[in-house]
């Protein structure tokens, strides 16, 4: 049963030190900035964070990294022109990086939510990112064995939620939201609007409520500044 909470602080309450936290977003699109701010204020530290990037500018995930709360980040594209807080921590040896090709990152998250034990993927075969991993040849093609990526918590930004926790997203801000919502034990959502049950057309619901545990309404979410030619 979903809880509808009054503010982001209540929504992230109970995330312990050492937790693995998936944070939605591709760059700034879909990044749940208010939930991240509340996570910083909660004091939780020693976190493992899963995101596509490693923070843009000075807000959201970048601020969490700057505050020294992230022990390890699992991502595909950390280095960007505006990833200075990550860059500084990385060069100082203060943050661990697990670099994962973007499609493998997405599929590992999807696999966790879908109960898949492991999967063979062609991506990365023959490259340094597959060093030491099991491989297999099937029908003349080469594959690398990859394992699911689970989390204790997922922080996700949606456009609209209903009071049961069904979600719809907006444009390319959808990105990792649906798969992270399914891959975490506890999924926490900030939505611009929370509407009554029945107000969302069942045909257009992207994330069914079964994956959602907590919702907080954030009507005019802050945005990290527009990134500057930030790369993939």
């Amino acid at each position, binding site marked *: 049963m979903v809880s509808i909470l009054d503010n982001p602080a209540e929504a992230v309450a109970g995330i312990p030190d050492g937790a693995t936290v998936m944070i939605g977003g*591709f760059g700034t699109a879909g990044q749940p900035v208010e939930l991240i701010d509340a996570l910083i204020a909660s004091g939780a530290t020693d976190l493992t964070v899963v995101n*596509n990037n490693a923070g843009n500018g000075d807000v959201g995930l970048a601020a969490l990294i700057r505050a020294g709360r992230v022990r390890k980040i699992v991502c595909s594209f*950390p280095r960007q022109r505006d990833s200075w807080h990550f860059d500084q921590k990385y060069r100082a040896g203060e943050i661990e990086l697990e670099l994962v090709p973007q499609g493998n990152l*997405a599929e590992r998250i999807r696999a966790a939510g879908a109960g898949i034990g492991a999967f063979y993927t062609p*991506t990365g075969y023959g490259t*340094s990112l597959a060093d030491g991993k099991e491989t297999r040849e099937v029908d003349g093609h080469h594959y690398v064995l990859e394992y699911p990526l689970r989390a204790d918590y997922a922080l996700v930004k949606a456009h609209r939620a209903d009071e049961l926790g069904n979600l719809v*997203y907006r444009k*390319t801000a959808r990105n990792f939201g649906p798969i992270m919502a399914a891959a975490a034990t506890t999924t926490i959502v900030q939505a611009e609007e929370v509407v009554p049950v029945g107000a969302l057309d069942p045909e257009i619901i992207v994330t069914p409520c079964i994956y959602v545990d907590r919702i907080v309404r954030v009507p005019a979410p802050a945005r990290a500044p*527009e990134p500057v030619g930030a790369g993939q």
Partner: protein
Amino acid sequence: MTGVTRRGLSTDELAARVAGDVPRGAFVNLGIGLPTRISNHLSPDSGVMLHTENGMLGMGPEAQGDIVDLDLINAGKVPVTELPGASYFHHADSFAMMRGGHLDVCVLGAYQVSARGDLANWHTGRSDDIPAVGGAMDLAIGAKQTFVMMNLLSRDGAPKLVPECTYPLTGVGCVSRVYTDLAVFVIEDEGVAVRELFDCTFDELMRLLEVPLLDRTREGDR
């Protein structure tokens, strides 16, 4: 450029040349950097539909001014627009679309391409560089055809079409064609075939590259 008069195609001429080989109605992913310019040379009636890895088909031109919407960006995180018939999907679907061979063509930039079609375009391998791979490895191996668009020589004059890549690999044997300012190459089972030359002779190319070349410039077929 080292002060010598430029020869061969300009970047925009090269982009137009690649665009001419994109089939009508194809589903296409253009990598960030140089390949993005190809979209300027695809005519609206070509029916080409652009895919962006962050979860969209039917991507339109870059957004300017009042229509900028920060929920609508491309893989380079630049605000873009949507065309009629566009669709959105999550990241696992977007990469399944790619890996599953549903895209007809992907065009990528490169540090190096080997004579066997190995691609190196994600990491210089320098120890002080922070590595970042993004979707490069998925794109390289996913589409039905992977084209590379690059200058044939690096800024310091080293050939980028090489017998073996010395930079870390992005994908093995994945490149089918290489479009450069001086020539168009097709990676075939028998070797690297030169299909077109720009301000350059086949003999000059043979001297420039350490890769054995097949002269297919007189065969009109592409």
